[in-house]
Each structure stands twice: as structure tokens, then as C-alpha cells.
């Protein structure tokens, strides 16, 4: 079995800018003596196997990539939000592509590459980077820093309202050697600002040999409002272990939407910290799995202060021989009175060989709170399939309609039509393709 961490430590990245070098140094210390197999043994990885990561040598980073023209073609095919309707930031195999991006930020916004950061920007980055990360110090967060060549700091200045969404595209391509992508964005919304961020993880059509370790950090200052989308539509061979960390200060609002098509190994850890009174977090998510795919969402909502609200709804359609893991935690800290917290996870199994492990976790240390949570796993309704068939609809199409119907209620929660249409298209396309495959889920 391949020793991912040992190899990484033996092959340090070349020295780049000073502060990134010290980040690497710190990470090296954090990784020293640790093993992927130790992580596997923890409760957090109980239902997800890390085997896929140890089957190949992923410990090297990507080589600079082919002609941007070629990539642009791939991009226009895989990305639904019209590039002209967004401010685009494109990363190819973790490296920022100036050619494919709108380098000039809109008024009131700053795009700062980590490798170019200095002065006041660097101070801001250093003050926030990693502070929202999980307190368990998962080895993957350490590895993210260990491999980090660059990253992006996005700042929306005080009271600025963005006219168009910022679209971040994380593209991976097949390379001669399997490789790791470590990528990171730090997004800071200053007080009273308002923005939409649309992140897409995608790949070219070739069989993938990348392992992406991405961390997205969201910092919402007083009264800031952010809609955050994170869509995973890479090829199924691409590995991904990523995280979203958000800090919400007073009266800040975060509306997030997650969508994932499955892969050999995909996991996203989401941590939302409600740090200021009146903060509100809404999270919706859907995962659609088939074949031998694996998707794991670990979410945790931390209510640190009184008078905050959180609502979380995730739904999964799980077929083939795939496996979905959902762990949703609500943590109400002492003193966080008048908290309103809800969490629901519903799953639809579309084959006998698929599996779901869902676990809601509640930890409540305040007495004056309202909290509701639940998780269910159901199967396709045979009578409903029959009813559709009696109207001439094929069994495959009937299943696609029912599966779509299962996640459709989430789409109603997507605020802007342009996003809703895009996400609807991905989901529709997925079900049509999935159920038209010979013998799928029969």
C-alpha cells in the first residue's frame, strides 16, 4: 500500500514565496509521523474507506497543463452558468489560469493570489487562513497546506453588493502521472456586503487520476449575505476530500447549496460556525450516486451564541452498488439560548445493492432552544412506477421522474433562476443517463 503522507514529506515543494514556505513548514511538522491508515481508524472515517487514496501514488503535484484553448472548449461544455454572466476564476489542476479567468475584479472586490499577496492583504490572509478549520485538525487539512502552491483571497469590500456571481471553476485534467491538487480559497465578505459564489469542481472527459484536497473558507462579517454553491461534477475516477468552513458574525446570512455526483472517493466536510447573534445559516444539498461510487458529507453546525438560526436539508438518491455517508451534527454550545436549529436528511435507495449510512448528531448544552432533526432511507415506490407505466412511460423514465421528484423540492430553494436552471439541468442529465444505461438499478 502506498504511504501517501510519508511520500509527501519526502518530496517537499520547491520554495516559493516566503509566507507560503512557512505555511509548508508548519504543515510538515503537523504531518510528521502520521499515516493515512491512522485517520482511517477514526470515528470520522468509520463508513468511508481511504483505500482508493493508497492504491496509487498521488503524492506529486500537477505539471503545468496543455493549451488553454483546449481547456476552454472543455469548460464551455461542462459549465452551465454562462461565463458572460459571471466573474470567472478558473483553476486548472489547482493552478490559477489567468488566460481563462477575468483577472480584473469587479468594483469593490479584490482578487489576490496567495503567491502574490503582500502588505495589508497578506496580513488579512494570515489573520484568517485556517482559523475556521475543524478543531480536530484532520490530517487532510494539514496536507492541504503541505501541498499548497497557490490560492486565492477574495474580498468583497464593506457594503458592496455584487452585480454578478463570482464563478470559481476547479478543473482537473488527466496527467501522465497521478497527482494531488491542493487548492484553497479564502473569501471574506466585509460588513454589509452581498455576494454569490458559484464553485464548480469538474474535469475533462478523460479518465481521471487526480486527488483533490480543497478547502474553501468563508468569512462573513456583520450583516454580510452570501449565497454559496458548491457543485461536484467531476468524472467518477477523480478523488476528492475537501472542506468548507464558514464563520458567521452578527446578523450575517449564509445560504449554501451543495450538489455532488459521486466518485470513487469523495468527501466534503462542512463546518458552519455561528459566532455572532442573529446569524442565519441555510444549507441545502443533494447527492446522486450510481455504479461503485462513494460520497460522504460530514456537516456540522456550531451554535456558539444566542439567537441564531440554522436549517439544513440534504437529500440523496443512491443506486447501483454505491454508498452514501451522511453525518449531520448540530452543536449548541453553552449559553446559545433561543437557538433554532433544524436538520433533515432523506435518502432514496434505487437499487438493492446500494447503501446509505446516515447519522444525525445532536449535542445541546443550552436549555432554551428549539431543535429538530431526522434521517430517513426509503425505496422507490413500485406502485408509483406502475402508475406512470400505465400512462405509457417506460420503467426507466418512470424511475428518473421519481428520483428527480425526490430532490425537486430542494431546487425550489435555489433563489436565482439562473442557478436553479443550471442545477436542474445537471440533475436531469444525470438521471436520464443513469436510467438509460442497460440494466441499471434493476
Amino acid at each position, binding site marked *: 500500500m502506498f504511504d501517501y503522507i510519508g511520500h509527501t514529506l519526502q518530496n517537499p515543494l520547491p520554495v516559493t514565496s516566503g509566507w507560503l514556505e512557512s505555511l509548508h513548514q508548519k504543515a510538515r511538522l503537523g504531518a510528521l509521523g502520521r499515516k493515512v491508515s491512522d485517520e482511517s481508524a477514526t470515528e470520522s472515517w468509520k463508513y468511508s474507506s481511504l483505500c482508493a487514496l493508497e492504491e496509487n501514488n498521488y503524492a506529486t503535484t500537477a505539471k503545468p497543463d496543455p493549451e488553454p484553448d483546449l481547456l476552454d472548449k472543455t469548460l464551455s461544455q461542462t459549465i452551465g452558468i454562462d461565463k458572460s454572466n459571471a466573474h470567472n476564476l478558473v483553476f486548472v489542476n489547482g493552478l490559477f489560469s489567468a488566460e481563462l479567468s477575468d483577472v480584473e475584479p469587479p468594483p469593490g472586490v479584490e482578487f489576490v493570489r496567495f503567491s502574490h499577496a503582500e502588505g495589508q492583504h497578506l496580513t488579512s490572509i494570515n489573520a484568517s487562513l485556517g482559523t475556521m478549520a475543524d478543531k480536530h485538525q484532520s490530517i487532510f487539512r494539514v496536507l492541504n497546506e503541505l501541498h499548497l502552491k497557490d490560492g486565492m483571497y477574495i474580498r468583497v469590500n464593506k457594503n458592496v453588493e455584487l452585480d454578478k456571481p463570482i464563478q470559481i471553476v476547479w478543473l482537473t485534467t488527466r496527467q501522465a502521472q497521478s497527482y494531488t491538487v491542493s487548492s484553497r480559497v479564502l473569501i471574506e465578505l466585509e460588513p454589509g456586503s452581498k455576494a454569490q459564489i458559484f464553485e464548480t469542481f469538474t474535469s475533462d472527459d478523460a479518465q481521471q487520476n487526480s486527488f483533490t484536497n480543497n478547502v474553501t473558507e468563508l468569512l462573513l462579517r456583520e450583516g454580510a449575505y452570501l449565497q454559496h454553491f458548491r457543485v461536484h461534477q467531476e468524472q467518477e475516477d477523480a478523488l476528492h476530500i475537501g472542506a468548507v468552513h464558514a464563520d458567521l458574525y452578527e446578523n450575517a446570512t449564509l445560504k449554501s447549496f451543495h450538489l455532488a455526483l459521486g466518485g470513487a472517493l469523495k468527501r466534503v466536510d462542512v463546518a458552519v460556525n455561528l459566532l455572532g447573534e442573529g446569524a442565519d445559516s441555510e444549507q441545502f444539498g443533494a447527492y446522486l450516486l450510481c455504479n461503485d461510487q462513494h460520497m460522504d458529507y460530514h456537516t456540522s453546525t456550531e451554535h456558539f451564541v444566542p439567537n441564531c438560526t440554522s436549517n439544513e436539508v440534504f437529500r440523496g438518491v443512491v443506486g447501483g452498488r454505491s454508498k452514501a455517508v451522511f453525518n449531520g451534527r448540530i452543536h449548541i454550545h453553552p449559553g446559545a439560548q433561543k437557538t433554532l436549529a433544524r436538520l433533515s436528511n432523506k435518502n432514496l435507495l434505487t437499487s438493492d445493492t446500494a447503501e446509505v449510512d446516515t447519522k444525525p448528531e445532536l449535542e445541546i448544552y443550552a436549555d432554551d432552544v428549539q431543535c429538530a432533526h431526522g434521517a430517513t432511507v426509503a425505496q422507490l*415506490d*413500485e*406502485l*408509483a412506477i*406502475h*402508475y*406512470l*407505466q*400505465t*400512462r*405509457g*412511460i*417506460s*420503467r426507466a*423514465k418512470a424511475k428518473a*421522474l*421519481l428520483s*428527480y*421528484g*425526490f*430532490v*425537486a*423540492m430542494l431546487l425550489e430553494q435555489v433563489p436565482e433562476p439562473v442557478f436553479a436552471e443550471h442545477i436542474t439541468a445537471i440533475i436531469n442529465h444525470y438521471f436520464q443517463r443513469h436510467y438509460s444505461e442497460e440494466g441499471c438499478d434493476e
Partner: protein
Amino acid sequence: MLTIKNLQANVEGKPILKGLDLEIKPGEVHAIMGPNGSGKSTLGHVLAGRPGYEITGGSIFFKGENLIEMETEQRARNGLFLAFQYPVEIPGVSNMEFLKASVDALQEHKGEQPMDSVSFLRQAREMYKQVDLDPGFLKRGVNEGFSGGEKKRNELIQMLMLQPALAILDETDSGLDIDALQVVAEAVNSLRSCERSIVMITHYQRLLDYIKPDFVHVLSDGKIVRSGDKSLALELEEKGYGWISEVE
């Protein structure tokens, strides 16, 4: 149109249809009456190919083809339509998506292009008005939270959109107010033609005042025990079903 000979069928291993014969020619309207539990709905389900309904003997030919060998959707595409006694609720799937998928499937079967969304929507709205349902229902989940009567009307809309060769209406008139009865009758009568056949399963002879059947059958204990014309329905209304078994 439909020829059923000595049909025997089990539901969950229990014999329900016990040698049923029925011949329906194009253009005819048949009414099937009979006591609760006699097998009327079972006949409808067997014809529609519902899982769990096992044919153990006899034959069914629909438009000259062996119906038993066809998949449910194939039967529908060939023109068979069953209005369910208990229509199924499908949350999350809108009536619009459902109807469009259904109409598209039938068009494709006929080798025709799918209807464009605008004409489809126009036609669907017309149908909703025809059965006195708010076209706003198009956006709602299929039968989701519909009242009993609304579900029945929704079945009629599907029938009108699909224009089947053989429509079987299983108690579409039950639980309806008197105005709604007229709606059912109008929908069925608008479908009537020399190429189409209609089977109405009903408990009430009053429906037959609006839709004049060519034949009335009595189904009892899994068999057709009596057939006649419209006057049979009147006689049943007066005397009940006991009279038939006594005659036998």
C-alpha cells in the same frame, strides 16, 4: 378490440378471477357492475399489467395481439387506458412533467415528433378547464393532496390527453357530486367514436343515464354471471344483486 376468454387470475396467491369471458368491439360502451369484492378492479389491474396480479389461465387479446405478453407501458402505448379507482399520489413529480412524459411516450411510439411545450401546455390547460379543474393544478405534484373528486378529474384529464382506443374507468363516478357526474359523462362522451371502446365499472345506474351503454354485465365471484342491455342496470337497481344468484 378486446377479447377475454376464460380468464383466471390470482392476487397474492388467492384466486380472484375464475373464468371470465368478455368481448368488446370497437365503438361499444360496456358497463360492468357487481358486488364489492367481486373482482371488478382486479380485472382492470390485470388488463393494465399491475405487479402482483398473476394470470393463471385463459387468454386476453387486445387489437389482435396477445396482451398478456406486453409490458404495462406497451399496453398503454397501444391504446389501453385504465382510470384508477384509487389514483396514486406522486409527490415531487408535477402533473405537467407527468403528462408531458406520457404524451411524449405515446407520440414516440407512433413515430411522431414530441409535441412542443407551447402547444402541449395550451392543450393541457384546455383539458383542465374541460373537467373543471384549475390549470394551476398542472404545477402540483401528481394527485398530491388532491381531494377524492379532484383525483378522479385528474384521471379524466389523462384520458383526454392520451385519447386511448380502450378506456377502462374504474368507479370514476364514485364520490363525485352531481355536477361532477356530468363532467365525467361529457369527457367520456367526447371520447366516444366508432373506433374507440369504453368500459365503465360502476355501482350506480345514474351514470348510465348520462352515458348510454350498449351492454351491461354483472361480475360476481370472479365471473361475468349475467349480461344484458341497459335495462339490466335498472333491474339491478330495483332488486339488488341477490336476485341474480337466486335465478341461477
